[in-house]
């Protein structure tokens, strides 16, 4: 009974695909299950999985949010510029907090427009993305720049360092990994153990019923977008910290991959359904594949084809399940 229930969940199938693929990659390259490769994959997960939280929370409560790369880029730019104006010696956590403040502001703008005018979140966040990029690149003329000393130092702090005994290759997991872990713990707790968490799923599932059940739809929705702004700011700062350099536009355009990963993990685009477990598994799957294609010797020209195929196959599984279920129920009827 329990196993039957398990096989029905998307997360289970994504997990199976991950296991199969990783074994395949290891058989082909002999390099997958090595301590340095595992650490490398964990490192490469940091920023995508922070951004995946943005996409995930927006989907389950409201709809698509595509603004997070630009919210991240603009808020971290402002934080770094302000830090430099103040002499550049602020502790890294304070620089993060400045970025988070700006991120919340931008998130509030998203949420307010969506709630107040009942616009589609896709249209609104596309619009604000364009605005933020105009402000960042037009008004501020942001360019690549070096990080303030403390932020740079934070980027070089090591949480875990391993060396492969056979090949001698080293890999390091930066301290920033903990930021991602903490964020997932917070979101997990809020979603599963608080009334607000219930409300987030409820308003995404059926807005009117949620309102009748006593949830303040507008407040929760604006709250989600403000929180998303904060997450995006943390994502943007962390991206800069990991690259040891501020890069204004590099993540722009990657939002679609993040969103694909979240959908892969079983989050429903129409709202109300999705788990944090699925969100992280989907991100792991896509990230693992993107970062293993050279390991198995796939040429540059075929890499995009493979990534596309994984997205389509991965998302086909839940769709197929829904199809099977509906056929079954129609048979019963």
């Amino acid at each position: 009974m329990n196993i039957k229930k398990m096989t029905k969940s998307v997360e289970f199938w994504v997990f199976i695909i991950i296991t199969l693929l990783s074994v395949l990659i290891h058989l082909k390259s002999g390099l997958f299950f090595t301590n340095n490769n595992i650490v490398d994959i964990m490192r490469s997960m940091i920023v995508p999985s922070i951004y995946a939280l943005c996409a995930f929370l927006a989907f389950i409560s409201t709809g698509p949010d595509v603004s997070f790369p630009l919210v991240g880029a603009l808020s971290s730019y402002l934080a770094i510029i302000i830090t430099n104006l103040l002499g550049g010696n602020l502790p890294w956590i304070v620089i993060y907090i400045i970025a988070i403040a700006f991120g919340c502001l931008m998130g509030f703008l998203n949420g307010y427009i969506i709630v107040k005018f009942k616009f589609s979140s896709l249209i609104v966040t596309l619009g604000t993305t364009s605005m933020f990029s105009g402000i960042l690149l037009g008004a501020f003329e942001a360019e690549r720049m070096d990080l303030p000393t403390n932020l740079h130092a934070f980027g070089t702090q090591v949480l875990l360092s391993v060396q492969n005994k056979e090949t001698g290759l080293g890999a390091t997991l930066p301290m920033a990994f903990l930021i991602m872990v903490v964020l997932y713990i917070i979101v997990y707790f809020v979603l599963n153990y608080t009334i607000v968490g219930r409300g987030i799923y409820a308003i995404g599932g059926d807005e009117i019923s949620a309102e009748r059940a006593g949830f303040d739809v507008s407040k929760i929705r604006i709250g989600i977008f403000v929180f998303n702004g904060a997450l995006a700011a943390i994502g943007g700062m962390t991206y800069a910290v990991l690259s040891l350099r501020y890069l204004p536009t590099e993540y722009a355009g990657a939002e679609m991959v993040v969103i694909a990963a979240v959908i892969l993990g079983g989050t429903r685009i129409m709202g109300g359904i999705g788990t944090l477990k699925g969100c992280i598994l989907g991100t792991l799957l896509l990230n693992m594949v993107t970062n293993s294609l050279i390991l198995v010797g796939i040429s540059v020209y075929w890499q995009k084809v493979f990534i596309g195929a994984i997205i389509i196959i991965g998302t086909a599984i839940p769709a197929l399940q829904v199809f099977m279920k509906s056929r079954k129920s129609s048979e019963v009827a």
Partner: protein
Amino acid sequence: MKKGLLWSLVITMGLMSVGCSSGSSESSNEPAVDLFALENYVTDKTKEDLIIAVVTKDNTNNWFRRMEEGVNEFVAETGIEVIQKGPANADAASQVEVIDSLINQEVDALCVVPIDPVAIEPSLKRAMQAGIVVITHEASNQVNTLFDTEAFTAEAFGSAIMDSLAHDMGEAGKYAMMIAYTTSTTHMEYANAQFNRQKEAYPNMELVGGEAIPSAESQESIDTAYERAKEILKVNPDLKGFTGVASTDAPAIAKAVEEMKLDVKVVGVGTPNEFRPYVESGTISTLKLWDPKDSGYVMCKLASDILSGNVENNGDGYNAGIPGYESMSLVEGTNRTLIGEADLTITSENIGEFDF
């Protein structure tokens, strides 16, 4: 029925040819001035009366400050007045404004580094109609220019990158190459030229990944370049050399190499200031580029030589009189492009001399 169709076809064609001939008679009525004939630009003004204007993409940028050094050398040498100006914002529209105001000031020559060649075509055409010499740099697709000047061909630069890499890694061992996008023409030209040069001159070197060109795409992202570099290094822990031609590539490859504690020589394309820490630590063994100082000097020199009638209309090349630009070859494409052999090599030994 068939006959009717044939007749209508003949009539249509007849009408079309009439249309054509009337069109050509119209165009022959236009005043025939060849804007690209160099003799039309020769002036009898004395050196003291000449003004050359250099228009950059962004004058606050270190790259163009370096260019100004070359311009100043030209001024000191010839006594001709040169004004170097950049747009208030680094966008095409602001650059058009700068060019237009310089045309109104009746300068004798405009040397432009275009932000967007297409956007400034009308302004440059107007300048040439007003008898102003127009020279460009880094704009091989610019139509309205007497000459575009380039430091080197993509082939020559790609070969030079390979020569540096071969030198740094002792002409033996495995190497990999990264570019921004396989769809980027220039980058693919660099990559192919690197490979061809290696095949021709360094038989003991081997391109990894079954000689696929390139080994990886960085998509102009430091993070992607870093991830791809790590993958390539994992598959080839015995790699000896790595090239990256986008400015994002070499620092990211160097970061991966340092973290994985490997001994790999990295040759990159970019500016000294961006790469300084890695060049100083030795992970980026060589930095290849061209010197904007020389580019500034060459543009001014060429403009002044055209004004004084020292440049042949159908000459096969040009001598700007400084190293790397002594026998610039002429390539006729969209425009007439003069190409030097002026790749610049920067290592930990001479990086201190460059600040841009």
